[in-house]
């Protein structure tokens, strides 16, 4: 158990407890609670620990924290669990340091997150206060579902960091557990006691890290925060002075915004992959639309054409108040040298194809313009997968192409989905139909190949068991049909057209 909720803690579950024991504890608690007075039963909800996901969530939270400070970073540890904010000169904007702490806490609570804060002159002291400061007591916090967990803040506003950390335990120095163990066995409990010992002795016995951590806590050594950059946002917006009913004006303005956004992106060497647009109308719903691109682009003319086709489908429900554009996906712009002569090798990567794909996808939808990738799957319907080309579909190109299996004419070019029920007039015993009716015409089977048994595993929810036959009729037409072994009926699955 790495973390648990407060409800679990009240039932006796602790960090570092094996899962089996925690389950047993809860079962006992649940059994005790099944009296007439209590209605709810405690059930254990387990989640596997995923350090990578933790880190991603923390980075996301760090980005969110840019509202409090221009410089936010994660602590430099293997498994960081602390955010570091440089709030020098920031607190007066929020009033004073106590009000700042209060406001930060409240904003976290609004996000349904518990938080412990430490505010000090040095990173080390702030870390120590946050983890072991007065009111914090090293109790585990967790993002509670009820969000009520709040452990107060250890703020050290006026005093120096030396005084702040004086009485804190040694674990507050961000030292390895072994070092803390040895020091505690030597009878040292607090940071203040450590500072009274001669520095030379400490260094020779425990190495340079102990002194560095100590100095970082009291401000003897500077410590940098590795900042997390907020993701760049490319937006363009226009607010009308008065509601604008004329569509032509809105369109002209959209065009200007597209050009503006393209210019900003080009300056940064980025190209647009997806553009989201919003038009806020008076007394009516907001119009939303989006345009996806096959390859990063800053070609305002091309993008405007795509935007225009999208926008023309929408009717303006009321006078427009605000128009905004946001390049929600963007990637580095690939600079491509133009060629003087038409190159002989023309393939899917060419810019002309990109323009075509963008154009088709903006009209028909992203899912309509695809590249098909073969999959190894017994079920014929799942033998391939559509990969949309827009929004960076090219990235999957390197994946090795699955080779088709079987003969050249084993599968029909036209696959009916779902398979059509077939009226069978005569069947050979344990064989294919000899005569069947399709689209009102009777067909006599002259040649047949099969059966080919196709069966999917039990783990498929809707598994299949089919005997496939490829048949050629007396006329020479070819069909692909099967007998569903479960329902004992014949179905036509494909036509060799």
């Amino acid at each position, binding site marked *: 158990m790495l973390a648990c909720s407060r409800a679990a803690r009240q039932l006796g579950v602790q960090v570092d407890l094996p899962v089996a024991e925690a389950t047993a504890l809860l079962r006992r608690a649940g059994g005790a609670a099944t009296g007439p007075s209590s209605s709810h039963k405690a059930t254990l909800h387990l989640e596997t620990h995923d350090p990578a996901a933790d880190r991603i969530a923390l980075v996301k939270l760090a980005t969110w924290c840019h509202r409090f400070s221009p410089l936010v970073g994660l602590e430099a540890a293997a498994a960081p669990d602390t955010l570091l904010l440089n709030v020098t000169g920031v607190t007066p904007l929020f009033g004073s340091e106590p009000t700042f702490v209060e406001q930060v806490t409240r904003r976290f609570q609004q996000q349904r997150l518990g938080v412990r804060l430490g505010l000090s002159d040095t990173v080390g002291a702030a870390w120590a206060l946050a983890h072991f400061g007065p009111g914090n007591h090293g109790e585990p916090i967790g993002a509670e579902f009820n969000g009520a967990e709040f452990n107060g803040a250890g703020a050290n506003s006026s005093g120096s960091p030396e005084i702040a950390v004086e009485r804190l335990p040694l674990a507050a120095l961000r030292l390895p557990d072994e070092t803390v163990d040895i020091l505690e066995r030597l009878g040292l409990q607090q940071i203040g006691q450590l500072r009274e010992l001669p520095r030379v002795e400490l260094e020779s016995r425990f190495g340079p890290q102990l002194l560095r951590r100590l100095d970082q806590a009291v401000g003897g050594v500077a410590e940098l925060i590795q900042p997390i950059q907020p993701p760049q946002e490319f937006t363009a917006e226009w607010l009308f002075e008065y509601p604008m009913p004329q569509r032509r004006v809105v369109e002209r303005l959209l065009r200007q915004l597209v050009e503006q956004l393209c210019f900003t992106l080009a300056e940064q060497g980025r190209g647009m992959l997806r553009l989201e647009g919003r038009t806020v109308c008076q007394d009516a719903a907001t119009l939303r639309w989006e345009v996806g691109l096959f390859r990063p682009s800053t070609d305002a003319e091309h993008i405007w054409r795509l935007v225009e086709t999208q926008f023309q*489908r929408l009717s303006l429900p009321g006078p427009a108040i605000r128009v905004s554009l946001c390049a929600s996906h963007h990637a580095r712009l690939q600079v491509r040298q133009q060629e003087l002569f*038409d190159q002989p*090798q*023309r*393939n*899917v990567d*060419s810019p*002309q*194809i990109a*323009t*075509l*794909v963008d*154009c*088709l996808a903006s*009209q*028909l*939808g992203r*899912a*309509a*313009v*695809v*590249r*098909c*990738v*073969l999959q190894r799957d017994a079920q*014929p319907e799942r*033998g*391939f997968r*559509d990969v949309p080309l827009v929004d960076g579909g090219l990235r999957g190109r390197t994946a090795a*192409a699955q*080779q*088709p299996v*079987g*003969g*050249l*004419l084993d*599968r*029909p*070019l*036209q*696959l*009916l*989905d779902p398979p059509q029920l077939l009226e069978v007039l005569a069947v050979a015993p344990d064989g294919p139909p000899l005569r069947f009716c399709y689209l009102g*015409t009777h067909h006599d089977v*002259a*040649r*047949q*190949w*099969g059966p080919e048994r196709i069966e999917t595993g039990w783990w498929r929810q809707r598994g299949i068991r089919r005997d496939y036959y490829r048949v050629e*009729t*007396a*006329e*020479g*037409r*070819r*069909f692909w049909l099967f007998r569903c072994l479960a329902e004992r009926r014949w179905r036509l699955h*494909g*036509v*060799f*057209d």
Partner: protein
Amino acid sequence: MSRGSLVEWLGDGPGCGAGMLALRAAREACREGGALVVIDPQGHFYPPAAAAWGVDLQNTIVVRTAPRQQSQGARQNQEPQNTGRNQGQWALDQALRCPHVAAVVAWPQQLDSRAFRRLQLAAETSGSVGLLVRSAAAQREPSWADLRLLVSPAGPTAVSDNRNNRSPTEPATWSWRLRIKLLRCRGGATQRTVELEIDERTGDIHATHSGNLAAQLADSAVDSRQARA
């Protein structure tokens, strides 16, 4: 087949192999580079079969114009049939206009004369080959295609070899016979008929009667070029 032309493949009923032949022609057209665009209006195109038939799926863009789940669902639900068809035609036109597309294979439902002419001009300007697979009912409609071919099954292969020695489940021969009738050809003789045999193991197509189809088609291509000149 010359670049910048339209070829109509009229399939005489289901299961006659018109699409397979069109796809083979598209594969040949892509040999010198360029992408293949498949416009699939009904969502029946089955890529594994195309891959087995020698089409490079990496170089193929499939456009599924059948509106399955689209963001603009509300608007399209009003007249799904009509918009679906128009979208297919529009996509076909756009693809034919793109100079780096070598071939477009499409299954257009209906084509009026104007739309057809537009497609022909589009193909001519970009130099790509449009292969339109249609039903035999389209024979009566006007055409702007350079070639119009009627594909029909040629009956089962005459079982001349020793079928009696084989078990009934094992086929005696490994080929598929199709008949192609040249209905229309720019500046060339029409009403010629060719019988083809597709070898299932190698994929080779060879003519059985009426001379070599490739030669005939090459003739017609030359003719059409001369006619244009």
